[in-house]
């Protein structure tokens, strides 16, 4: 309490000295409080030999191209502390985050609602979903964490602890720019309906292939906005920068390599631009994923681009970092802002297979592996997935929705791979001056198409890829807006 009193006194002193030069500033409720920030990284690189997840095959990790991290930022307005943890993984189950949050709460007393943890969605990391292969689609809640999940939870909680240890008086600012050129809606309406693995016809095809002659038009939008929060010490030393951009990932990683994709390249590049290399207290940058369930980096309208491994992610990261830096230079820091958080649980129905789908699944699985597919090359994978879901998943699940308020900036956190139009809707309807969303946050429950997109079909809507009721996005948006209002 003494520090607070002293700084209050010095504010008063500064005001009285200025009194003849200008009108004293209006008394703000925050002026007697010290705003602090601390950041850290915690290394989460898996051991070699563990399977890499994100695609339909899961090769063992044979090489670490770049280390994986949980990147932590803790903000403190003197009363409330909020923590962001952005983790280099494809998607992290709620129980892993819950364990990390539990450990943090035990150590620091920070309430769970104040801890926002998300996965970036790199496709070149190992599984944090409890096992590999088909098992990852099972119901793993309540099972004990596997070795990597336990390691991950502990490294996250250690990272937050170190960020708290690093708290120092700080200023905060935020802004946004636009990087439209790297975003493409990957769902396309096709001239002819396409067969899906369940033997149904879809109007939409995901990743239809470069210059596919049957392309009609993209089935959805993109969100070109890149948002960021920046914190620096009161002496002007950069502490951390959290970016947010709605791009699934970039890829271009050789088989067997571990890499944090463009998310880490962005962190490195913005650090370079801010001249924050080799600081005694290391600067920490992080890139969170916005709402990119249907947005990738492939322009199917143009001829194929060929790049050496890791080259494309560097280009994307560089462009995004440069845009952030351009806006950063004009951004104003605030000495103090108020922090608030709200979280709620939402019950969603689990989507069930239709009797026809189950019959088809049995039929598909009865066929020899060598037989030509009945409907689709992935039909066996999906047949196994829907049967496992049918057996193990409960009829209803509780998911966590969370919002942060940082001054007049709102952040919404959603435990799905969210479609871009949902992110745009939240941004448009938010009561805050600036808003962004973080997907795959506090859990990972598959894709979240809108009801309209469900009608169009396509990979993201397939049962097994999507797991919850078709109306889920509506309920989620309305709940998040209610949480935003509660913080107003």
């Amino acid at each position, binding site marked *: 309490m003494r520090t607070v009193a002293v700084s209050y006194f010095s504010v008063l002193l500064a005001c009285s000295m200025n009194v003849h030069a200008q009108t004293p500033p209006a008394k703000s409720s925050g002026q007697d409080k010290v705003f602090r920030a601390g950041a*850290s990284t*915690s*290394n989460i*690189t898996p*051991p*070699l*030999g563990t399977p890499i997840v994100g695609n339909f095959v899961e*090769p*063992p990790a*044979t*090489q*670490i191209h770049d*280390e994986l991290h949980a990147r932590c930022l803790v903000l403190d307005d003197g009363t409330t502390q909020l923590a962001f943890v952005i983790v280099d993984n494809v998607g992290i189950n709620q129980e892993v985050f819950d364990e990390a949050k539990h450990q943090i709460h035990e150590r620091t007393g920070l309430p769970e609602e104040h801890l926002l943890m998300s996965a970036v969605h790199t496709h070149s990391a190992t599984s944090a979903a409890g096992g590999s292969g088909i098992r990852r689609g099972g119901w793993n809640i309540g099972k004990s964490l596997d070795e990597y999940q336990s390691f991950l939870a*502990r490294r996250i*909680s*250690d990272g937050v*602890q*170190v960020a708290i*240890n690093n708290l120092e008086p700080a200023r905060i600012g935020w802004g946004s720019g636009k990087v439209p050129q790297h975003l493409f809606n990957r769902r396309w309406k096709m001239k002819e309906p396409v067969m899906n693995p369940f033997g149904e016809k879809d109007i939409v095809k995901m990743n239809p292939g470069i210059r596919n002659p049957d392309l009609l038009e993209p089935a959805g939008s993109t969100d070109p906005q890149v948002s960021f929060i920046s914190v620096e010490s009161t002496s002007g030393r950069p502490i951390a920068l959290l970016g947010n951009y709605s791009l699934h990932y970039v890829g271009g990683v050789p*088989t*067997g390599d571990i890499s944090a994709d463009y998310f880490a390249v962005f962190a*490195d590049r913005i650090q*370079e631009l801010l001249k924050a*290399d*080799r600081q*005694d207290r290391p600067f920490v940058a992080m890139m969170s994923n916005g709402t990119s369930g249907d947005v990738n980096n492939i322009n199917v309208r143009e001829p194929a681009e060929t790049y050496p491994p*890791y080259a494309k992610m560097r280009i994307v990261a560089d462009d995004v970092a440069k845009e952030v830096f351009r806006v950063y230079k004009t951004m104003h820091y605030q000495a103090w802002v108020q922090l608030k958080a709200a979280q709620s649980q939402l019950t969603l129905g689990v989507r069930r297979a239709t009797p026809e789908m189950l019959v088809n699944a049995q039929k598909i699985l009865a066929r020899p592996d060598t037989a030509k597919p009945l409907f689709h090359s992935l039909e066996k994978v999906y047949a196994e997935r829907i049967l496992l879901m049918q057996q193990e998943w409960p009829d209803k699940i509780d998911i966590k929705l969370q919002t942060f308020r940082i001054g007049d900036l709102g952040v919404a956190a959603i435990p799905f791979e969210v479609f871009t139009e949902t992110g745009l809707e939240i941004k448009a309807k938010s009561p805050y001056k600036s808003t962004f969303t973080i997907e795959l946050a506090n859990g990972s429950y598959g894709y979240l198409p809108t009801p309209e997109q469900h009608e169009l079909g396509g990979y993201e809507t397939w049962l097994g890829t999507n797991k919850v009721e078709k109306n889920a996005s509506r309920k989620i948006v309305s709940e998040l807006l209610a949480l935003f209002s509660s913080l107003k």
Partner: protein
Amino acid sequence: MDIYSKIKFNLRFLPGCLSFLLCTASTLFGQTNSTAPATVKVFRAGAATSNITPKIGTSINGLFQDRLVQNIHDETHARGLVLDDGQTCLAIVVMDLCAASREMIDKAKARAHKATNIPLENILISATHAHSVGTAAPLFQSNPDPAYVDFLSDRAADAIIRAFHNRIPARIGWAVGQEPTQVFNRRWKMKPGTPMPNPFGGQDQVKMNPGVANPALLEPAGPTDPEVPVISIQSLDSTPIAVLANYSLHYVGGTPDNEISADYYGLFASRIRELLGADKQAIPFVGMMTNGTSGDINNVNVAGKKNPPEAPYTHMRVVANIVAAEAYKAIVNIRYQNWISLAAFQKEISLGVRKPDKKEIKRAQDIVSNAKGPAMNTSEEVYARETLLMKDYPDHVPVILQAFRIGDLAITAIPNEVFVEIGLELKAKSPFKPTFNIELANGYNGYLPTPAQHKLGGYETWRARSSYLEVEAAPKITETLLGLLNKLKTSHTELSN
């Protein structure tokens, strides 16, 4: 000769060590009329780091009392280097640990061998001797978390596998810098009449760390070794791949009690990378600082003036910058070779253990039972506890010794905190110039004083799990290592002929 059939590791097939590249002269020189293919020897090298930061709340090695991690100041690593002359691979790993047990290291070597086929005796794994790192071996009142020890085995192996994977055609060179300003013999003879009690109830003739500007200082009990040997490896287009340096300095310290830091070893790695302009490379540059023979050498100039206390981490940065500057000076004058040959020999010897006798055990039991506890607080109590732990040790222990030849340079590896005069003797008598030594390598068998230093007594000779080999251990180890070096010399000469 199907060596690959032995690989049963669940990693993707890696082209094994022993892969002479066959190129035709025509491919190399663009000639079309060449008839006979020629064998071109290609030297390759790769380096990688692997994170070994311990969990918050677990044990920190280095002091008499155990401490628990509360903060990570800087991450700790296993830093790996693999050299490959086309026929023979050598792997060197240095870990940010105070000491590393033989068991942990052997498991790491086995995992690395499975994935790369590098023979076990061609793998050298050492600890830096930072005192602000996770506990990997039981020392005084710090005990390792078994899960951390398993993690370390995997991570040390992964540093090798990753380095092996990163191999690219490379050139290599070495040089020896001199940095006498940062090393001080910490064992002092004191003016006659100065009391020098030891925790066993006797008097020593030498005092370790007698205190800066102590008026009773007479003279240091031993020399220092100012050399900074460096091996530098770069790609054929001069991109730095790795620098392996060696300096005989125990550690620097100056960290808050509950913080993890790689000490000046980590800062050296970062600073040499900066000096070489090797930041942000596509294949990351790896700097490595290995510990030479520094059992009796520290960074405290007790003969100098008392300095005002410094902020944490300040002094280690000064030391790292000075040593890196000297290493850099040596590196810029290196003439690189496009190919050199590699070789390794290893020998295990059995050495006696200085076990406590009945009287000593009785005295120790009395002290421990009278201690307030649960932790042992006085050095008498700490050593009494050590005496009791030593009573069940075997009479003899195996000690692993190893020598590497890298072209005309040799490295010895010793699983002890080695006194500096032993390192100087090895350097002087080695048939290879230069030769340097890496201590705390391949296991941990405590301090290694010379028999003459044993006579003088002092901390490093006090019997504990950190000092227990027979008094004659040093000459036996020196003799074995010189034998390995001479064997390397003979086989190299035969090879050259």
